[in-house]
């Protein structure tokens, strides 16, 4: 009997995987909508599809991994890694906060370095929060 029936932790893992897939799928739909809304406006940037794919795939991976690592300390570690990934991505994608678009004879430049700095600060706060949550999680006894 016990060989045929799945073990409780396996069942739990299966449930987690399904839940992670569902969460990721829902998040993928959100990114799909964002793509449709932004593509027509940002088609002038030749690197936009590649940058969009990178952020969408990266964040979908983290959504899946974080949902899968629910109730474990890895969840907070993954959250901190996600914040690092966002810092690196935002700095690279925005070329340090300076975006340039060159059409035939006209060139446009938008410089938003203070805004990028704010985004980096937010992600650093997110890392700090994830670390505090990890410490809190580790400090809790199984009974708690």
């Amino acid at each position, binding site marked *: 009997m016990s060989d045929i029936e799945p073990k409780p932790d396996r069942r739990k893992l299966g449930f987690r995987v399904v839940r992670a897939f569902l969460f990721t799928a829902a998040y993928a739909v959100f990114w799909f909508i964002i793509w449709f809304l932004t593509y027509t406006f940002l088609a002038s940037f030749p690197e936009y599809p590649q940058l969009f794919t990178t952020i969408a795939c990266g964040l979908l991976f983290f959504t899946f991994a974080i949902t899968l690592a629910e109730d474990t300390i890895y969840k907070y570690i993954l959250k901190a890694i996600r914040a690092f990934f966002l810092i690196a991505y935002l700095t690279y994608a925005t070329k340090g906060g300076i975006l340039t678009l060159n059409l035939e*004879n*006209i*060139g*446009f*430049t*938008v*410089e*938003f370095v*203070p*805004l990028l700095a*704010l*985004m980096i*600060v*937010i992600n650093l*706060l*997110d890392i*700090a*929060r994830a670390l*505090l*949550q990890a*410490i*809190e999680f580790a*400090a809790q006894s199984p009974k708690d």
Partner: protein
Amino acid sequence: MRLVTRTLGWVIVLLWIVTLALPISVALSLMRLAEGKNLGVQEPTFNFFDGNISVNMPVYINNTGFYDISEPNVAIKIYKVKVNTTIVSLSKSLPSIPAGQMVNTSCSFTASLMEIFHKDRTLLTEDTNLNVNAQLSFKVAYTIAFNASLNFSTRWGAPFHNISCVLAYNDTTHVFSISISFNNHAFFPINGLLVVKLYNSDNIQIGETSIGLDVPSGGNFQETVEVAADPSKITDRGFIRLFFTELNILEMEWTLL
């Protein structure tokens, strides 16, 4: 600890809202500014005075957006297409435009023609194509800076186009008759003294005269001037140099037949 993480969470959410709302509202603000007749440039006026050329362009901006527009600046750079050297670089800062206010100002630039010709003397005698780079930059909400640049090419008309000198020498009176002609292709008139200097083969000056120029834009000039030469210094060949306000516009060799 839980309270700290929860507070941090709320701070992060708030900061993300501010960070995402700012560029969206700035974009909306610029769209409001761009619609209707909130921006206007009146016809520029050109003045030529005392070797300086000045361009004055009245501008009005009605800031209907949500944010102040700060550090507006207009910069113009003119450079030669072939050699890619900057001939003139001009910049003008405009006053800041607070949100909901209208500002009338003028964008005026002054450039010294002498400085321009010192940088490239061929501009005096040769028509050419010049590249112009015009830039407009400003900041919205003191945070996001915008810069728009436009490149176009313009035709430069030389003020002494096709300049030529024909010399004739009278050996009894020791007087050189010099016939000077040129076309003023420039968009400004030429006013000032044209100095004619004669040199012998040892590069020693043998005679000099000057003639007042008043050639309108698009006009032709043709006149003959006489230069009395020092007979003791005359050689079989030499040089003639033409100067306009200390700029050497022509140097050619002459030979006595």
